[in-house]
């Protein structure tokens, strides 16, 4: 994700809650990723790689483990590797108010 670092990140805590796109985010597919602008923000964020993949998968709320499964299948990578990659990406998106937690 290309933007300033998030001011403060919550401790890694995406699992086991479901995650969903936050309300009021403007977005488009763009180039090799996704551009997104939270309604309260001024800066358009460019999501690439796993962040873009997470965004596109979250057309409906999903559990973290479902995200891991889908991405492991899509990219033909083992689940542990995907999970290790996904935790910081999802945390960062939560901190930037692109995602929200929903009850599991």
């Amino acid at each position, binding site marked *: 994700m290309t933007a300033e670092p998030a001011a403060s990140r919550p401790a890694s805590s995406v699992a086991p809650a479901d995650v969903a796109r936050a*309300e*009021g*985010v*403007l*977005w*488009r*597919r*763009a*180039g*090799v*990723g996704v*551009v*997104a*602008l939270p*309604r309260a923000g001024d800066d*358009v964020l*460019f999501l690439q790689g796993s962040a873009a993949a997470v965004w596109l998968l979250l057309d409906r709320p999903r559990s973290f483990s479902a995200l891991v499964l889908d991405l492991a299948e899509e990219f033909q990578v083992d689940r542990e590797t995907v999970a290790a990659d996904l935790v910081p990406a999802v945390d960062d998106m939560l901190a930037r108010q692109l995602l929200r937690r929903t009850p599991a």
Partner: protein
Amino acid sequence: MMDAPEGLPDLAPAVAAVGLPGSLHAFPDHPLDPQAWARLLARAREQRLAGLLLSALDDGSLPSTEDQREAAATLHVEQMRTVLHLEAELLDAIDALRQVGVDVRVIKGSAVAHLDYPDPALRAFVDVDLLVRGSQFDLAVAALLRAGHTRRFPQPRPGFDARFSKGASFKTPRGAEIDLHRTFVMGPFGLDVVLDDLWKDSPEIFTVADVELPALSRECRLMHACYHAALGDVVARLVPQRDVAQLLLSGRLDRDRVRFLLERWRAQPVVALAVRTTWATLALADIVALSAWAHRYIPSPKAAQELALYHDPQARYAEKSLAAVRAIPSWRDRVAFVRALAFPDADYLQGRPRGVARLRRAALARSRSRNVQ
């Protein structure tokens, strides 16, 4: 539209037709050389076609090098960043208008991107366009001014906007442009549009950032796309033509409603020109009822003369405005219209005294020629 340098084919129309059924445009079967690529990328920037260009590279219809793909992707990100900032402005403007009870329709860019393209990322735009009723125009202007927007040009006289103008243009505090429309275009064809028809159809709803926004009906969107393609610029731009094709080839139009609007708005010259131009530019082989009709249609000499005015690079606001007089039904309104343009308020005159002088001369010439007849 830019002329192609000698020896370099202009591939922008082929890009504008990417994904349309029945287009006869084809790309080379090898990546473009650096000069041809640079020209195509410049055209994609100028005509806002990065989404369609990237789509052509992704599906392999235009072979590319890694560098070319990266350049197209970068341009697309740039155009989509602009689009998101504009949609944020759109939501703020809608909010300001709804707070004072102004009924509004989102038109052109954002609405067409969300409702008529398979992916809104294929349709870029550079401003926000809103339609409001003439009776609420002044209220809408006041709401946008209160929200901190700056009106770019004042109206010639109080009440002119609500009765005669195409609309008004604003700059937002962040520098974006918002066009507030009363009708589609200035001049005679704009005044022929029966505005009530735009509001009679149920709005089609689309969603931006979880906010539901009303657009015109699909048939009115087609009509508007035709006005934009045929009359919006001296030389038709590619995106409005793509909009026309996108809507017409969707197979989801109510043909009776389109026929009704065509006749009631006396829009045949405009729509026929837009459809013919689109079919030629995008090399469309598919025939639909409206394209068959458009190719047969011959405008009257008077309509042809009025169309020519929109494509004359020398014709200014004054000439187009004066030509609109014939579309104003009552003599009292005609007098008010000419009087407002020939003798506007001092605010309006700032920065455009030559335009007003041209209008006065044109009005005089018109009145002399009428006396001779």
